[in-house]
């Protein structure tokens, strides 16, 4: 296997879902079994992606494959310079792992949906949409330049709009899809601005070229401040897509889509795209930009976690938990833990997809009941669903032997180390607090759903375990949530193969004064020493600087113990509250009623936005409408009456003044047309006369 075949295989994986989408969409009406085609296509894509993953990680661990072709070559543009836009794909370890995650979860969602969506009247179309969605996401994964990312970014936006609003007859669903689309656009404007800033400075969209030029010392407008601004603007796209504070409001509403779609969009693909983008631009982020990202991440981790504590809709709990976990990843990037952020992205993708699919299984069993207060005792009725969900919940809470423990522990240790190095301890505290709340609300969900007495006997009686097509994906994902896939040591991911050899943190390219101090490598005494020392050091995988690696090393043990402690505390509290009923929950909530309501009503974000942005927009449009109807119309009417009164003889001007120019041009060219075609008399001798005449005229012009 060589470069070319890698690229070819990658292109095949990329375009297969598009092919599936096209065929399924166009023949879906004619053949009712067309969805099987899409399922087969995605299975092939999955098989190729596994092969790629294997080949890349085992045989080409340190290689990076790039293929690109010039797309638009404008040459030298006046006033701008060289303008060449390339199309390209890049394959490195992060790409293949992400590729595998997307393909796997997409395939599992396909299988799951066969059973879950059975009987839907737009069954085939649903599968076609899954295809285009997977295609768009894979485009982001493979993209080698900002423009392609942006194109596929918008495609993801479009396809998520189609999927969230799949049941568009339901007003809430169509509203939710519109909300998701529009809120995402807000972030995208920032991202586009960032991309254009980069393009005007570097005349290219390609990552590598941009990084090289930054390394060579070229900054936007030659100022470090603008470098920071560029990074933050690009991150704005991620804020929208990854549902980070303050643009997180679309994600909970997006639960109106079919549940497997939620698993696809909110676990592995769309929301992960934001984190993926931030990882891709990581080298060009300055220290200030990273700090901004960390703050956004911490807020996004904390606020939704508090909201999730009180929600009763099973999918809403998971939705807020998703935002919170994404906040974790964003925070991890902010504190410089590139590899742990990506690691958490992967592990979270598996167990969160599992949680959504599991909730889908429960909802399916309960005949589309989503309120956990109506459930209870389902453990016996849905054994497979129960045990898999238990596994995911352990993982997300960060209990040892699970994948979630490894990644979460890494993030917390990084935050802790970061605090030690820079003094910003708040991130570590937030992290532990959120871990506590996560464990609590997840097990609240588990206990309320599966344990205790059934609270709705009627629905409980009709509940049944889901078919194998639905449980098999659950089991697959549960197995992937075990530590053994990522490291041999269940307590330290740093020594495992994922962290030590597969994911390499790229070095920052921004000038050293703009970085965090710990990201600057201290100069060794002599160059020779450094050269000799470099060989063994490669195996240690130095991240940023020895200082940082050292701090990580020291932070690891306390962070692990503390995170384990808070996880157990969270689970224990949930157990005491909802199993043992030691504390009367209702009494407690009434005691802290304002806080409870604040959480239950999601911090009133929707109301806040409605009162501010939406109201502002509405206000502005009202003012405009008023302006339009009174001032503009007034002027028009006024001028009309004035002309009428002043000159009865000629009111030709009347309304032609307003829109006459365009009409005039059209009529004028029309008249000219009638005029010039009269030259074409049909008589060949006239033509010759006219030629001779024009020759003479031309002669006089040009002599």
């Amino acid at each position: 296997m060589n470069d070319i075949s890698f690229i070819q295989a990658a292109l095949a994986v990329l375009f297969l879902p598009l092919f599936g989408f096209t065929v399924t969409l166009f023949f879906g009406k004619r053949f009712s079994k067309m969805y099987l085609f899409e399922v087969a296509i995605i299975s092939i894509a999955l098989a190729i992606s596994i092969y790629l993953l294997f080949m890349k990680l085992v045989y080409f661990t340190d290689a990076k494959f790039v293929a690109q072709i010039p797309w638009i070559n404008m040459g030298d543009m006046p006033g701008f310079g060289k303008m060449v836009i390339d199309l390209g794909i890049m394959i490195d370890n992060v790409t293949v792992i992400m590729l595998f995650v997307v393909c796997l979860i997409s395939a599992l969602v396909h299988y799951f949906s066969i059973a879950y969506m059975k009987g839907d009247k737009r069954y085939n179309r649903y599968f076609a949409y899954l295809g285009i969605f997977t295609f768009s996401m894979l485009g982001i994964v493979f993209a080698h330049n900002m423009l392609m990312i942006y194109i596929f970014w918008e495609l993801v936006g479009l396809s998520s709009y189609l999927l969230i609003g799949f049941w568009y007859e339901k007003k809430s669903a169509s509203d939710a899809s519109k909300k998701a689309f529009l809120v995402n656009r807000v972030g995208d404007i920032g991202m586009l601005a960032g991309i254009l800033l980069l393009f005007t400075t570097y005349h290219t969209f390609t990552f590598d070229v941009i990084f090289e030029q930054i390394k060579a010392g070229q900054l936007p407008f030659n100022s470090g401040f603008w470098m920071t601004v560029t990074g933050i603007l690009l991150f704005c796209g991620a804020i929208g897509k990854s549902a980070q504070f303050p643009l997180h409001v679309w994600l909970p509403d997006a639960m109106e889509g079919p549940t497997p779609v939620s698993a696809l969009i909110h676990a592995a693909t769309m929301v992960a795209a934001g984190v993926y983008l931030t990882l891709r631009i990581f080298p060009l982020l300055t220290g200030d930009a990273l700090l901004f990202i960390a703050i956004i991440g911490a807020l996004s981790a904390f606020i939704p976690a508090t909201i999730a504590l009180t929600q009763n809709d099973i999918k809403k709990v998971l939705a807020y938990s998703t935002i919170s976990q994404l906040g974790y990843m964003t925070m991890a990037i902010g504190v410089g833990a590139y590899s742990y952020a990506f690691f958490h992205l992967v592990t979270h993708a598996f167990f969160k997809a599992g949680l959504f699919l599991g909730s889908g299984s429960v909802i399916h069993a309960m005949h589309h009941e989503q309120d956990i207060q109506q459930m209870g005792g389902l453990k016996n009725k849905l054994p497979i669903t129960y045990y898999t969900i238990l596994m995911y919940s352990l993982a997300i809470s960060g209990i040892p032997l699970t994948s979630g423990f490894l990644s979460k522990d890494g993030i917390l240790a990084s935050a802790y180390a970061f605090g030690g190095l820079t003094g910003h301890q708040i991130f570590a505290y937030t992290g532990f607090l959120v871990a506590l709340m996560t464990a609590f609300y997840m097990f609240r969900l588990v206990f309320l759903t599966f344990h205790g007495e059934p609270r709705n006997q009627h629905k409980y009686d009709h509940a049944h375990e889901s078919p194998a097509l639905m449980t098999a994906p659950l089991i697959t994902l549960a197995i992937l949530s075990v530590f053994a896939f990522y490291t041999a040591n269940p307590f330290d991911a740093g020594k495992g193969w994922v962290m030590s050899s597969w994911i390499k943190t790229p070095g920052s390219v921004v000038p050293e004064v703009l970085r965090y101090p710990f990201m600057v490598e201290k100069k060794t005494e002599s160059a020779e020493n450094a050269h000799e020392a470099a060989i063994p050091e490669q195996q240690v995988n130095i991240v940023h600087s020895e200082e940082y690696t050292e701090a990580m090393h020291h932070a690891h043990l306390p962070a692990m113990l503390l995170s384990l402690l808070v996880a157990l505390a969270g689970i224990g509290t949930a157990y005491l509250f909802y199993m043992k009923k030691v504390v009367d929950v209702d009494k407690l909530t009434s005691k802290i009623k304002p806080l409870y309501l604040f959480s239950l009503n999601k911090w009133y974000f929707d109301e806040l936005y409605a009162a501010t942005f939406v109201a502002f927009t509405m206000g502005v449009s009202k003012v405009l409408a008023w302006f339009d109807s009174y001032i503009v119309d007034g002027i028009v009417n006024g001028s009309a009456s004035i002309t009428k009164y002043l000159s009865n003889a000629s009111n030709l001007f009347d309304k032609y003044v307003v829109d006459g120019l365009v009409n005039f041009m059209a009529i004028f060219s029309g008249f000219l047309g009638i005029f010039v075609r009269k030259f074409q008399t049909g008589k060949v001798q006239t033509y010759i006369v006219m030629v001779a005449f024009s020759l003479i005229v031309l002669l006089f012009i040009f002599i």
Partner: protein
Amino acid sequence: MNITLNHFLIVSSLLFSFGLYGIVTRKNAVMVLMGIELILNAANINFLAFSRYSNSIDFGQVAALFVIILAAAESAIALAIVLNIYKTFVNINVDEIDKLRE
């Protein structure tokens, strides 16, 4: 009287003008074709005269030969087309054949 290059050029210009005049004024398609022949032969006179009165190689005479052959071919084709016109329109008045216009 010496015959100079200018005499030839005057003849050829007259021939060219008569040809053009004939093409524009005659109704009969065959007469129009004759006008075209006049134009071509005006060019031929030019070629030959220039060739004769310059001291370069006699390329103009070769050109004239080519043009004569081409003129024959052109009239053959044009006459065939005129014949076909006669079949469909039952006259060969050029100014009456103006169905395609504007």
